[in-house]
Each structure stands twice: as C-alpha cells, then as structure tokens.
C-alpha cells in the first residue's frame, strides 16, 4: 500500500494554513486570537518539514526532528506569550490591540 500524493498538494495545504494564520494575525484584534493564528503559521512549517523529509529526503530524519523541536519551542513560546498577555490584561483590563497601543509615532 502506497500513498502517492504529489508533494505539491501538501505544500498547498501548508501554504494555505500559513496565510490563513497571517490573515488572522493581521485582522484579529484580540491578542489571544492573534496568538491562535500564529499557531497555525508555526504548524504550517512543521508540515513542510515532515513532508519534505518523508517524500524527498527520506534518508535522514532532519525534517522530522525539526518538526519535533518546532513543536516544543512553539509550546514554550505560547506559554510565555500567554503569560505576557495575561499580564497585559492585568495592566489594561483588556486584551485588544487598539487598547494596547499607547506607544507609537
């Protein structure tokens, strides 16, 4: 049993996911919603690594491990980001970018 899907199809999926994330990031005003969008973006790259590894360069596990570390780091990032957002909430009582934009110019 073999899976014969062109790599390109995976890549389309990941690209769409990436740009969905970007879109979300740029349109959302709620900081957590933006963070969710970033998760999509990070996930998209992980798919790429795994797919490339499996299909094109199956000899070594570089892409696989990159994905693995990517997940770990993303988790760490998310944790810190959520901590900071909670702190923002504590300071501003809201988590909207419009409110948290006192510094500009």
């Amino acid at each position: 049993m073999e899976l014969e899907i062109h790599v390109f199809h995976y890549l389309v999926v990941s690209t769409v996911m990436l740009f969905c994330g970007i879109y979300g990031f740029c349109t959302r005003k709620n900081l957590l919603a933006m963070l969710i969008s970033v998760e999509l973006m990070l996930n998209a790259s992980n798919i790429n690594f795994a797919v490339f590894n499996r299909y094109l360069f199956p000899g070594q596990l570089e892409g696989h491990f990159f994905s693995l570390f990517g997940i770990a780091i993303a988790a760490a990032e998310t944790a810190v980001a959520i901590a900071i957002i909670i702190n923002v909430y504590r300071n501003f009582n809201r988590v909207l970018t419009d409110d948290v934009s006192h510094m500009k110019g």
Partner: protein
Amino acid sequence: MMDLSLLDITFYATAAVIIVCSILAVTTGRIVRSATYLLFVLFGTGVIYSMLGYTYLGAVQLMVYAGGIVVLYIFSILLTRSSQTMRYRIGRGRLAAVLAATATGAVLVIFLLASQHFALVAIPQGVELPAREIGHAMIGSDKYQYVLPFEIVSVLLVACMIGAILIARRHK
C-alpha cells in the same frame, strides 16, 4: 481522471478539513470556536504526520498541542474574558490591504513552490518510523543526531518556565 484510493481520499478529506478549519479559525466571531477549529487543524496535522509514517511526531503533536496548548488557550480565554471582545474588527481599508498582501503572498509562495517541480514519489504505508531510531537520533552526538539541540531546548524550556512564572505571577 485518476482514480482515488482510500488513502488518497483520506488525505484529501484531511486536507479539506485542515483548510476549512484554518479559514474558520481565523474568521469565526467567537474565540472559543476559534480555539476549537485550531484544535481540529492540529488534529488534522497529526493525521498527516501519521500518514507519513511519523506516528511519534503525530503523537507529540496531539499531546503537546491538543492536550497542552489548546487547554492553555481555553483557560486564558476565560481568564481574560476574551470572548467579550471579539466583536472588534479592523477597518475596511486595512482589511483590503491585509487581503491583498495575504493573497499576493500566497500566490507568490505557491508560484515559487510550483516552479520547483518536485518529483512525484510514492511512500509506502504502514511502515512506521521506529521509536528506537528516533531515540538514537535524539541522544546521539554524531551527524544527524540531535543531543545538543535536545539539551538546549531543555534549558530553553526552563528559562521559559521561569520567565512565564515571573510574568504571570500575581503577587510579590
């Protein structure tokens, strides 16, 4: 018209779910739903990993993301009363700009990917990446082995933990 095997169908179905849920995750008006759609996307990604034979990766994906991060999201959403503030949307002008930039970017990336002409390769199914191999690679110090990043990530996680606690801790 190529005929589709079950596996193909599974893939395309997963892909469709991922895409649809991605879109929904960034467009829905309720943040909890958004988190839920994210969960689906992450599940879908896990499924893809499994189909590629990276079951271990899929499992980590499910555990860390679905089990850890999304729960974290839910908590923080509740904590920051985010569900009340989702109605704010950006102005039309900016929306158009975002759409234009995003669409151009997506088209550009897809164009770039298409220009590469990746070969069509078939991968065998049911052949799992053995956990032993992963383990070896993880703790080895030779080429294609990853003990150094592994150790560093541990330091990173400690630091993030310290940092996150520092920031989130309420009292002195």
